[in-house]
């Protein structure tokens, strides 16, 4: 309980515990506060509508005991109020001030950070429960001010008055708690519903910005088969990554970098590349070199080879292996002019500079480029 309060207020558990102990010695306020908070503190934030629904019946069961406690407190308060018609001024400055502070804390503490800020922002809105909290806080504060202002002769009398005031207010609030809780539940449900509506609006907006625009473009360019293919492929990829990958982070892994490269080549030439990547590792200069060499190999495959172009990248503890394959007539490394930098420099040279190897294989029906990198330092094969 103390821990929960501490977490909620952002104080250390020890401070809260001592506060309760001290409050208990000062006329038992700590006990009352403890019981009250124990009864009303939510078990945890409602995660979604489902748990919300589940939570409601158990709340209802608690209400009975809350009402009994509240009624008892009101009785006690009423009894205590009667003899206290005159109090003492001694010590009646600090204690009312403390009461005012407690009132303010109660008014504000049960609002979440988000709700607090929203309440500060708008002031109005649907947060009727916020008003309930504020009403309690104001009540406590007013009680404190009253005790501070009204004369009080003896310390104990002032203390009794204070205690009585608190008890009455707390009792009233506990009686009102069921309604407050129901309002709170309604509010949370409304919030979930509005969050869903927002999500749906986001999806609609995304589909409009991406899919519908692309479809319009495709209709306009329906004569140009290559352009249509390119548009459709780019859109498919975009939608796929949006649906299945979630928000994209930075391109800080090798798998992401390689995928990026393949997409870039696809966009440049409108040729579909069937890419499969397994495993992953952090993106570093060697991996960057492999990605660049692979880009060159893909460009070659798309330009000189034939569809389908397939690429497979395996990133494992024994290093990285990348294969780019096309089904064209292929090219012979010996026939490539020396001044052509493409294969020689961009692929072979680059891989060798980074401790890897590259191999170009001519097959019956196409060419396959193999790129290999050793494992990163510190990783054992």
């Amino acid at each position, binding site marked *: 309980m103390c821990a929960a309060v501490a977490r909620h207020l952002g104080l250390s558990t020890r401070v809260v515990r001592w506060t309760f102990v001290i409050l208990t010695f000062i006329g038992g306020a700590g006990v009352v506060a403890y019981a009250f908070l124990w009864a009303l503190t939510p078990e945890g934030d409602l995660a979604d509508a489902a748990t919300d629904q589940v939570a409601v019946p158990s709340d209802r069961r608690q209400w009975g005991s809350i009402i009994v406690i509240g009624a008892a407190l009101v009785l006690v308060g009423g009894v205590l109020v009667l003899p206290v018609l005159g109090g003492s001024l001694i010590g009646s400055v600090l204690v009312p001030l403390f009461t005012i502070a407690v009132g303010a804390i109660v008014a504000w503490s049960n609002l979440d950070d988000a709700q607090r800020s929203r309440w500060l922002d708008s002031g109005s809105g649907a947060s009727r429960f916020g008003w309930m909290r504020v009403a309690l806080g104001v009540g406590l504060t007013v009680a404190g001010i009253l005790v501070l202002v009204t004369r009080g002769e003896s310390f104990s009398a002032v203390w009794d008055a204070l205690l009585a005031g608190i008890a009455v207010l707390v009792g009233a609030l506990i009686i009102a708690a069921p309604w407050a809780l129901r309002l709170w539940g309604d509010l949370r449900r409304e919030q979930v519903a509005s969050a869903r509506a927002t999500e749906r609006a986001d999806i609609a907006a995304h589909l409009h910005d991406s899919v519908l625009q692309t479809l319009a473009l495709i209709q306009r360019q329906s004569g140009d088969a290559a352009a249509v293919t390119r548009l459709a492929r780019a859109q498919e990829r975009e939608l796929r990554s949006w649906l*299945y*990958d979630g928000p994209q982070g930075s391109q800080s892994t090798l798998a992401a970098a390689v995928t990026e490269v393949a997409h870039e080549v696809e966009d440049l030439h409108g040729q579909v590349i*069937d890419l*499969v990547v*397994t*495993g992953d590792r952090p993106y570093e200069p060697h991996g960057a070199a492999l990605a660049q060499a692979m880009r060159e190999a893909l460009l070659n495959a798309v330009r000189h080879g034939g569809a*389908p172009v*397939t*690429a497979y990248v395996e990133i*494992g503890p024994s290093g990285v292996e990348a294969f780019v394959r096309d089904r064209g007539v292929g090219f012979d490394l010996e026939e490539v002019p020396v001044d052509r930098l493409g294969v020689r420099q961009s692929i072979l040279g680059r891989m060798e500079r980074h401790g890897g190897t590259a191999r170009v294989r001519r097959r019956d029906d196409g060419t396959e480029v193999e790129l290999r990198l050793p494992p990163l330092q510190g990783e054992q094969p």
Partner: protein
Amino acid sequence: MSTRQPTAGTTARPPVRVVLVDDHRMFRTGVRAELTEAMGAAGGPAVCDFVGEAPDVDSAITVIRAERPDVVLLDVHLPGGSGNGGVDVIRGCFGVETPAGAPVRFLALSVSDAAEDVIAVIRAGARGYVTKTIGARDLITAIRRVADGDAVFSPRLAGFVLDAFGAAAGEIAEVDEELDRLSAREREVMRLIARGYQYKEVAKELFISVKTVETHVSSVLRKLQLSSRHELTAWAMGRRLL
């Protein structure tokens, strides 16, 4: 593995009886037209005979039970049933056999590359998984292969398998029977398929027969369906919720 149909020479074979299940009518029409055209261009007897179509889970089960086709081309995402699409169709047709006595075989056809979908439909009993962008000739090959009781792995499915079984990370089974890991040979076959190799190219590369390749692929399919490797489902889910 299940009993294979007698392969009495390619010309004498009756066409594969196919039911097409997809909720998009345009897609069904397109597949039929494309396959008919491809078969016409290739000449010879028809490879496939479309005996039925269905747009949702419940009518699919009805049609499949009535027609008892050799192969069902099955979309992964379908309306109806208990909401699991193609998986529900496979479960609903459990035990249905063709007139020849072979089990009805399913080839999953999907636009989705999501690992979760792939793994779910394969584990439900599909004998292959191809994406809807597959060419007509490749699709005919795949249908024939599934009708023969073999497995059809796309490069992406092979990649998933390598990832899910930790084969890419170097986990290799000591004995072939181990369900939770791939054998060294199976891994090699999977890697070549992931690289875009056709079965016959895999066979040539590894100096084995196409038949042996098919055996390895079927064995991997069996492991994928039966393995209790705990990462498998979690891995697929993780892919989805990345």
